[in-house]
């Protein structure tokens, strides 16, 4: 090792100081130390009681509404949002005896009966808004016959078309599921897969509702007609759909009945939903049977059904309220038309046969 010259040594001391300083800075950046709100305030008076809402990753509501709820009930609302509706359901089933929260929102009609059967939910004591009775899940009661799930929002998964594309090509857009297998529309349709996406699953259920046990035959015709199957909704809509963010080249896509409200160009929307191809999706909320704060949980469910939250659903979560008295945003009222008679499949049957249907569907598309 050489002996250091003074100037070199000075530079090194300097860099050592710089290093220490940057380490200290990094330390200040850490998440530690500002972790949880303290359980008690410095004076020792108890902090507001906590209520934990477990939900999926599409959950979003304006902060203003959450703060108003907290102020009104003297509660702190903690939201744990992760995964899709399936992940949420299975999480609740697996943690049934020691849940990660007090109340759950976001289980849909394709998964709900699995959770109800596993006794995830306790009896509900809430006042449903007018119109909500249309969306009550049959059989969603506990052993005493009390309801355990309250419908909160609804939307339909429908095939969407790019009207401008069909106008330009001088082709009449398709209208029914049967049309999608018509050679006139060969190679134009893109949908997310049933195994990897919940709207994809809803579309499979729509075809099962329409064709019954003959659905594999319909899917074979769809495949022969060049349907493209992607991983998730964003791949189908944003990449392959002609009106999506990436300007793809397929003018028919699986999306929602509300999607046309998002493609408004000036005074018109450039897309429309095919109302004869829809499958109804309803999302529910319920109080968890192992809740630490059951009263707070009941209040959260009631809050989700209140007019303010119901009115915020379209802009925050892209779904329709179940309250028929709530006014919709202008774009929605004008462009997001809902089907009058969407397809449905008995929730119990979905729970029983989901595995079989998905297995058969996967085998079909990989053949």
């Amino acid at each position: 090792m050489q002996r250091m010259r003074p100037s070199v040594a000075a530079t090194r001391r300097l860099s050592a100081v710089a290093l220490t300083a940057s380490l200290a800075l990094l330390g200040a950046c850490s998440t530690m130390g500002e972790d949880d709100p303290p359980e008690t305030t410095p004076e020792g008076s108890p902090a507001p009681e906590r209520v934990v809402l477990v939900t999926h990753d599409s959950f979003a509501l304006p902060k203003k509404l959450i703060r108003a709820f907290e102020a009104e009930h003297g509660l702190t609302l903690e939201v744990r949002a992760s995964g899709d509706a399936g992940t949420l359901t299975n999480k609740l089933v697996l943690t049934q005896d020691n849940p990660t929260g007090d109340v759950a929102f976001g289980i849909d009609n394709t998964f709900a009966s699995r959770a109800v059967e596993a006794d995830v939910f306790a009896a509900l004591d809430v006042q449903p808004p007018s119109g909500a009775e249309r969306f009550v899940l049959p059989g969603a009661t506990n052993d005493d016959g009390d309801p355990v799930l309250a419908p909160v929002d609804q939307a339909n998964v429908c095939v969407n078309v790019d009207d401008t594309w069909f106008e330009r090509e001088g082709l009449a857009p398709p209208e029914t599921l049967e049309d999608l297998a018509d050679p006139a529309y060969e190679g134009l349709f893109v949908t997310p897969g049933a195994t990897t996406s919940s709207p994809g699953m809803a579309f499979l259920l729509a075809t099962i509702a329409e064709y019954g046990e003959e659905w594999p035959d319909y899917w074979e015709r769809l495949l022969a007609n060049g349907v493209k199957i992607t991983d998730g909704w964003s791949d189908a809509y944003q990449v392959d759909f002609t009106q999506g963010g990436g300007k793809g080249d397929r003018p028919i896509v699986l999306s929602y009945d509300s999607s046309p409200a998002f493609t408004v160009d000036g005074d018109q929307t450039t897309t429309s939903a095919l109302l004869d191809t829809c499958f109804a999706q309803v999302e529910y909320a319920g109080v968890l049977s192992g809740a630490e704060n059951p009263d707070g949980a009941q209040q959260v469910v009631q809050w989700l059904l209140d007019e303010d939250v119901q009115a915020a659903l379209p802009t925050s979560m892209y779904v329709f309220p179940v309250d028929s008295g709530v006014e919709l945003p202008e774009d929605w009222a004008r462009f997001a038309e809902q089907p009058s008679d969407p397809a449905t499949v008995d929730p119990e049957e979905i729970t029983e046969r989901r595995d079989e249907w998905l297995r058969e569907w996967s085998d079909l598309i990989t053949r």
Partner: protein
Amino acid sequence: MLSMPARRLLALLALAAAPVLVVGVFFVVPVAGMLARGVWPDGDFAPGAVLEVLARPRTGRVLWFTVWSASVATVCAVLLGLPAAYALHRLEFPLRRLLRAALLVPFVLPTVVVGVAFRQLLGEAGPLGFLGLDGTPVAIVAGLVFFNVSVVIRTVGGAWETLDPRPAEAAAALGATPWQVLRTVTLPALRPAIVSAATVVFLFCATSFGVVLILGGPRYASVESEIYLLTTNLLDLPAAAALSLVQLFAVLALLSVAARLRAVPDPTVARLAPRPRRPRAGDWPQLAGTGLLLVLVSAPIVTLVVGSLRVDGAWGLGNYRALGSVGSRDALVVPVTEALEMSLRTAVDATAMALLVGLLVALVVTRRSRGRAERRLRGLLDGFFMLPLGVSAVTLGFGFLITLDRPPLDLRDAGLLVPIAQALVALPLVVRTLVPVLAGIDDRQRQAAASLGAGPLRTLVTVDLPVTWRPLLAAAGFAFAASLGEFGATAFLARDDRPTLPVVIFRLIGHPGAMNYGMALAASVVLAATTTAVMLAVERLRVPSVGAL
């Protein structure tokens, strides 16, 4: 008084205790919990269902595809990464540091955004659509290479940088062709690092289910995507347990093979302070290879940047200005800027944990063993800390929920769970970067230091630290990047009011509306730029003693 070997063994166990405890609590317990639910459904031991799954023809297809795609991608990543590792670490040319930092960008980009970028390039309407690659295995392999090539560059480059060039120069002086020098001198010296990198890349590829699904569509199933489907959708835990067990055994087999391949007769390597030189005419193959890699890696990134600058069919910065907001129609709970801050803070914690634990692990597994029992033990420990890479994030995530839920391990609500999960992901990267270098130190140097009166700490500072410093920096940068980009575990554990940037990007791209799409792309570009900036800053840090070598 304890005997010498017993004391050594005790010291080894003491050093290993902390890392073993961390990995035990946050990995072994949760995964074992999930496996137990599958093998003991309703409390009764019923391995029949598990065995039945293994006999399904679909399982065989899925296994084969996983092994095939991961192997091909690993070979491609190594072949493309080696020239770049050389050019970026041994040669001196303008923008070298920037390129080095920028090549780490793919590693942190969220899969869903890269998937969109790739598909815009390769899709039927994209500029490369004529190749017809969309939804094919080629696209999947390309995606896997894109994400993982930086692992090869970093791991091998770090070892290559300080390699003594004199043996190679001597061989050349004795008349060896450049190819002969590479084959007989350089590559053998680099073998531990290359095998390390390839192992990590293979594990990443074999468990990266996002790339397979997005680029291949549901048509191609890998073990990982199958476990995801079985756990989150079908709740078929016996089947998921069967595949997880296969995954575990496969990883163990791979690790033992890798350990054999890594073990060179004489791991000691003469190390020098790096002296990068100007490129010569003979360097053109490496430079050309680096150039090719740059083109391949930048194509999807350019697509992202271009997309982020388009607003309503015209050029503009509107998407970037919107990052301070919560998206059109309140798509987000917090603005993107806040999520970025959260990402950086979390990454600092995760990096600190990964480095601390990783350094301990690397020290434990590289110290020269006396006797077979000790060597075995060190080998076992080495493999043990790689396991988190080979097991599905879904299994781990669900395992957290069902096992860490009661005192003394009531950790489900702990805010530190996110950085801990990220540190677990980064840990093998840190270990695999440090081990080849530490193993390359001639133990006689330590003995010499000891006989001159240096204590263990002093030996560490004067012998180990000077050569480990640069790889340690590389590992820190790596861990930081891995943490910034981590999505699977983070999305599962992050709280809604404190999401990280990848979680927010995922959310934006999942909502209709041109504004949200543009913001997702802009936020990805910001994530990429932040990564590059952090990498550049890390590389500029210097430690006082290194220059003295």
